C-alpha cells in the first residue's frame, strides 16, 4: 500500500476516537471542527515522521493534545476550557480506554432503535439539525432545563445500552 493510502486508512480508522477526544474538551462546534481540520492536516504533514511501530491512534492523539495545549497557551481559554494538566489526564485516560472494545455505529443504531420516536426526534434536532436548545424547547413546549435534562438522560441511556450491546456480543 503506498504512503498516501496508508495514511488515509490509518487516519480514518481512528477519526472517531480522535473526534471523541477533542469533542470531550472543545464543545464549540465551529472551534472543534476547525481544530480537527488543523489536526488532520498536521497529521498528514507529519506522517513521514510517524513511527509505524507505534499505534497510529496514540500518535494522532498526542498531536491533538499538543494542538489543544497550543490553543490554551495562546491565552484563549475558550474553546479549551481545561487546564494543561486536565488535558494530559484526558489523554492518559484515552490511552487506557483505547484498548477496550468501543461501541460503534451498529451499537448506536441498535440502541437508537429502542428509543421512543420523540426521543429520536429530540436527538435529531440536537445533533442532526444543530438546533439551539431554546428552539428545541419551543418545539416541545417545555423549558430549556427540561431539554438539557432529557438530553443528559438520553446520552446516559444510550451509553448503558451500547455497553450492554457490546457485552452481549462478547458473550456469543
Amino acid at each position, binding site marked *: 500500500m503506498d504512503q*498516501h*493510502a496508508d495514511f488515509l*486508512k490509518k*487516519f*480514518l480508522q481512528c*477519526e*472517531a*476516537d480522535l*473526534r*471523541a477526544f477533542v*469533542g*470531550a474538551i472543545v*464543545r464549540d462546534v*465551529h472551534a*472543534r*471542527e476547525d481544530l480537527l*481540520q488543523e489536526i*488532520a*492536516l498536521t497529521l*498528514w504533514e507529519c506522517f513521514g515522521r510517524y513511527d509505524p511501530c507505534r499505534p497510529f491512534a496514540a500518535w494522532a492523539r498526542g498531536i491533538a493534545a499538543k494542538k489543544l495545549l497550543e490553543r490554551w497557551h495562546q491565552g484563549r481559554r475558550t474553546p479549551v476550557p*481545561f*487546564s494543561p494538566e*486536565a488535558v494530559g489526564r484526558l489523554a*492518559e*485516560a*484515552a490511552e*487506557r*480506554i483505547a484498548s477496550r472494545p*468501543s461501541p*460503534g*455505529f*451498529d451499537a*448506536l*443504531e441498535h440502541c437508537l*432503535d*429502542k*428509543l*421512543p*420516536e*420523540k*426521543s*429520536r*426526534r429530540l436527538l*435529531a434536532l440536537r*445533533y*442532526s*439539525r444543530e438546533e439551539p*436548545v431554546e428552539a428545541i424547547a419551543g418545539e*416541545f413546549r*417545555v*423549558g430549556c432545563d*427540561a*431539554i*438539557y*435534562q*432529557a438530553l*443528559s438522560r438520553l446520552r*446516559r441511556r*444510550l*451509553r448503558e445500552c451500547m455497553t450492554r450491546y457490546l457485552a452481549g456480543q462478547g458473550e456469543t
Partner: protein
Amino acid sequence: MFASDHFEQLIHRHLDQIATAEELAELDRLVVERPEVAEALLEAGRVDALLTLHLRGTEAVGSGAVASVAVRSAKERHFRGAKGDSARPAPWRRLVLAVIAIAAALLLGLGVWQWFPVPAGHPVVAGTIEVDGSPAKRVADDAPLRVVGDGPAVIQLAGGARAELQAATAAVIRRPDGSQAQTIELLEGGGRFQVPRRNDRPFCVQTCNGSVTALGTDFEVNLWSTQGKGDQEMSFRSMFVLAVAVAAGMVQVDVPGEKHVLSAGSQRVFGAEVPKVKSLTAWLPSGDVLGFTGKGGQPFALEQTVPGIQGALALTDEQKTKISAAADQTIHSEKVRAAMATVKLDPNATEAQKEEAKRVLAEARAKLRDLTTQVLTPEQKSLLPRISEAVAEARKQAAAAMETELIAGKGDPAKAAELQKQLRQKTSEAVQAGLEKLLTPAQLAAYKKAAEAQVAAEKLGKDKKPKGDDQPKKGDGKKPKGDDQPKKGDVKKPKGEDQPKKGDVKKPRGEDLPKKGDDKKPVTL
C-alpha cells in the same frame, strides 16, 4: 466523596455548553484528581461524537474500520442556508473537504484540480480490462467490460468517482438517458466504489438482485454467483447473492419489495434466499457438482470451457430435483451463506474465522458432491471421467500442435494474443471431435442443445450457465423502481424533516423525554 451523578451532571452540562465557569473549574479539578472522571468524560464524549457523526450523516467508525467521508443532504444545506448562515462552508464541511481533498488526491494519485468530468470513455488507471474481448484503456458508456488477469482493475469515473473492480468482474457503465447520474450495471463479480463528496450526481450500482445507490461514500458491492469459476467454487443454479459493505457514508439498497439504508460499518447480504426454481427442465447443475474434473483431478465446472457439457449426461427431471434438494441442504444452507459472508465481506474477520468459514464451505461442497454422486446412474458416473479425460487430451493435442508457434510468439504480445486465440479455436475443434467419438447420438444431441443455450445466454450478457427461463437474469426486472430512488441532490432525504436519518421509527415508547416536574410547565412528550 462526590456522588458519581454529580460529576456526571457536570460532564453533561459541559457537553451541552451550559456549565458555568465555576462548574468547569470543578470538572477540571475532578478530571485531574480522579481517573474515573476523566474516563467518564471521554466515554460521554464518545457517545456525543457518535451521535454527531451518525445523525449528521458524517461517518467515522472506531478502530478496525476504514474510511470517513462526511455527507450532508442537499436539504440540510438548504436548511442551513435558509437560517442565514454565512457563505463560509460549515466547519465540519471544511474538514470534510480537506479530508476528501487529501483522500481523492491520495487514492487517485492526481491533483485535486483534476476533479472534472471524465471525457468520453472512462480511463482505466490500473489493471487490465477487456471490452468486446479486446484490451481497452478507456471504457465507453454502454460497453460491456470484463476485468481480466488475476488482479483488480481501477476505472476512473466522472466527477472523481472510482471503481475498483475485482478480477473476473463483468459490468457495464451507463449514464441513463444521458443524465448526470452514473450507473454501474454489475453482471458478475464485485468491486469497491468510492464516490467523493463533490460528486453530486447520484451513483448507483445495479445488479440482478437489487441496486445500491450512494452519494459521497465508499462502499463495496459483490454479486456472488454460484457459478463455478474453475477454482473450486461450487456453482449450482443461477443464484446470485448481493453483498454490500459500506466503509463510509451511507447507501440505499433496493431489492425487490424492500429498501434498506446501510451506514458505515454495515454489511449485509441480500437475495441469499435461493430462488424457487419453477421448472428444472432446462436447468443443469454445474459441472463441479456433477463430478467433472480439471487440472490435478480437482472438481471443475467444465462448462466454463466446454459450454453445455453437462447436457451430455442427459439428467432426468427426477435427478435434477434430487440434486436441487441436496444443494438446499448443503451449499445453500444458512450456515454456509453466513460462512460465505465472513470470507467475502467481513473486514474484521480474523484469519481463524476465515479458515473456519472456508472449512464450512469445503465441507458443504464435498457433501453436495457425495449426494449428487448417489443420484447419478452408473452409466452417468462412468461417463464423467471419460469426458474429462477426452477434453484434457484434446487440449493437450492442440497445445502440442501449436507448441513451436507459441514459443516463438512469446516476445510479441500482439502475436501471442493472436496465437492464443488460434489455440482456443483449435482446442475447441479437438474437444468437439473427441466428444463426437465418445458420446452416443442422444448424448451428443443433448450436449449440443445445452451448449447452444449457454452460448446464447452468454452472448446476451446474461448468465454463463445454461439456464431455463425461470432463472434470475442479470439486470432483468430488478432495476430501481424509479420514484422511490434517491434523486440528485436529495439522496439523504430523511423520512421526516426532523427524524434521524437512519432507519425507520419503530417502537414508540414513553421514556427519556422531558418529564413532568423537570419544568414548571407539566407537559408530556
